[in-house]
């Protein structure tokens, strides 16, 4: 067996062949690569198949019915291309690639390969899709539908909110967690719907219609996580966007990442960047913080009331009051005192009646009522029935214990209550407090404030 020479003159070729050579294959491969690279760089369109990623490169084929070309791209370049695509390319999609022919020459240990080296890529028709959405946005704008939801006031403390989202999505957990963090103790009506396929828009429209007819829902969140324009296409659906625009309940949209923009974001009352932000928009008041602030404020008021009255209250002699105001005034006050001693029951009852009144007024003021009243009553009755009457009534009947406690503390230190107990405030005619007998003798002309009004008085004793 002869050993081929590695130096000196090249071995002889095939004697009968008239072709030049033989050339060393590595050199020829390098030459081929140079020639291929000289081919005009072009854009190709076809179906993306066999997409696979290696350590440094991404490979796929571009096909149509007449043929195919193997394609490749550097992994870093590929990531950059994806970032520029509003729609993420996937297996089976029509794509346009830009680049040129290339040839990997291989080596003693690796196989050579031809590929079309891809420098840029877009999903075919993406421009058409975006243009169609833009046209629809302009159309809705010209009909005034982009502003309607923004005119609806979001309640800062809703009692019932609805959330339209995927049943198994992360958005659901995020919203629930955010509401719990706020210490919000209302009702969530979950409206689970597909949030990306072709059924999504229709399902969401149905949920919106059902929610409108429930009557008690005060705000609606529509949420899903990020995705491509194609994934989020359902949220630019014309019927869905028109339904939201004309919906009587304010809708907070949280669709995709903050960089994604769908038509829903334009028609909704609020466009939130994340499901968590949507939850915070829909319950604007941090209930935990608000409860603490209320208690702290009540305590501050109590301290101020106490300080204001300390040393300035003069209990007048009963006989003097009898002479000054007559027997009737004393009887009135006595009745008032007796009423007060019947507290706290009577007081609590009064507060309860007041709370009921407030609740009735707030409910009556709700302007978002759809459908005929009878259907509404039936539906509401059903909602109540589902919960079992006791829970709902409980919420309305029972004032939280902490409020009762706070009011009792406040009442105990209410200056007005002090006056009602038979005390009076003494000041000079300019309203400056007179806190001692000697000051009173000096001022001579005084003003005495009772619970039911003020009288001017003159000091007789000098």
């Amino acid at each position, binding site marked *: 067996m002869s050993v081929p020479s590695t130096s000196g003159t090249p071995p002889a070729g095939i004697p009968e062949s008239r072709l030049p050579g033989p050339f060393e294959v590595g050199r020829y491969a390098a030459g081929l690569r140079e020639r291929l690279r000289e081919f005009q760089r072009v854009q190709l369109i076809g179906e993306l198949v066999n997409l696979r990623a290696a350590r440094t490169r991404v490979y796929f084929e571009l096909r149509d019915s007449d043929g195919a070309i193997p394609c490749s791209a550097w992994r870093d370049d590929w990531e950059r291309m994806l970032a520029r695509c509003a729609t993420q390319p996937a297996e089976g999609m029509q794509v346009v690639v830009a680049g040129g022919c290339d040839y990997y020459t291989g080596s003693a240990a690796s196989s050579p390969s031809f590929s079309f080296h891809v420098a840029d890529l877009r999903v075919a028709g993406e421009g058409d899709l975006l243009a169609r959405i833009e046209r629809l946005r302009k159309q809705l704008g010209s009909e005034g539908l982009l502003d309607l939801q923004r005119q609806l006031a979001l309640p*800062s*403390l809703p*009692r019932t909110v*609805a959330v339209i989202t995927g049943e198994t999505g992360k958005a659901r957990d995020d919203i*629930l967690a955010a*509401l*719990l963090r706020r210490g*919000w*103790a*209302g*009702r*969530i*009506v*979950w*409206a*689970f719907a597909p949030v990306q396929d072709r059924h999504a828009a229709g399902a969401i429209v149905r949920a919106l219609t*059902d*929610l409108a007819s*429930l009557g008690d829902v005060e705000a609606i969140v529509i949420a899903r996580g990020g995705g491509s324009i194609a994934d989020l296409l359902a949220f630019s659906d014309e019927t869905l966007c028109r339904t939201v625009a004309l919906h009587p309940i304010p809708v907070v949209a949280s669709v995709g990442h903050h960089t994604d923009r769908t038509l829903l974001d334009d028609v909704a009352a609020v466009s939130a960047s994340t499901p968590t932000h949507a939850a915070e928009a829909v319950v*604007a*008041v941090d*209930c935990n913080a*608000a*409860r603490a*602030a*209320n208690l702290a*404020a*009540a305590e*501050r*008021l109590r301290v*101020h*009331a106490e300080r*204001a009255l300390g040393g*300035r209250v003069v209990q007048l002699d009963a006989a003097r009051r009898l002479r000054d105001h007559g027997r009737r005034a004393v009887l009135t006050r006595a009745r008032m005192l007796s009423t007060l001693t019947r507290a706290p029951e009577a007081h609590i009852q009064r*507060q309860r009646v007041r*709370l009921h009144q*407030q*609740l009735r007024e*707030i409910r009556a003021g709700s302007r978002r009522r759809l459908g005929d009243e009878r259907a509404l009553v*039936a*539906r509401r009755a*059903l*909602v109540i029935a*589902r*919960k079992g009457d006791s*829970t709902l009534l*409980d*919420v*309305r009947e029972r004032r*939280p214990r*902490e*409020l009762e406690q*706070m*009011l009792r503390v*406040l009442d105990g230190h*209410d*200056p*007005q209550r002090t006056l009602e107990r038979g005390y009076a*405030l003494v000041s000079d005619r300019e*309203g400056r407090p007179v806190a001692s007998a000697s000051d009173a003798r000096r001022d001579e002309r005084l003003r005495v404030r009772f619970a039911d009004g003020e009288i001017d008085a003159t000091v007789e004793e000098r």
Partner: protein
Amino acid sequence: MSDAAPEPAPGAAQQLTYEQAAARVEEIIRRLDSGEASLGETLALVAEGKALIERCAAELGAVGTALEELRLDELVARLEQEAGA
């Protein structure tokens, strides 16, 4: 009495949003803490603050006592069942 803490019209507490009411309470406390309010103003501010706190607490209480979850599909199914019955 100072102009710094104008007294709202009676019943104004009912027209404020929750946030406005809470902000007004803070304003009242600040004014009282400043020590500049006269006796008469102090008494008026305490009364106004008390009414606002009471209203805020009532609104918080009216939301409910514990977070509760319902499903729209179940509610609708019941409605339809009832409509059919």
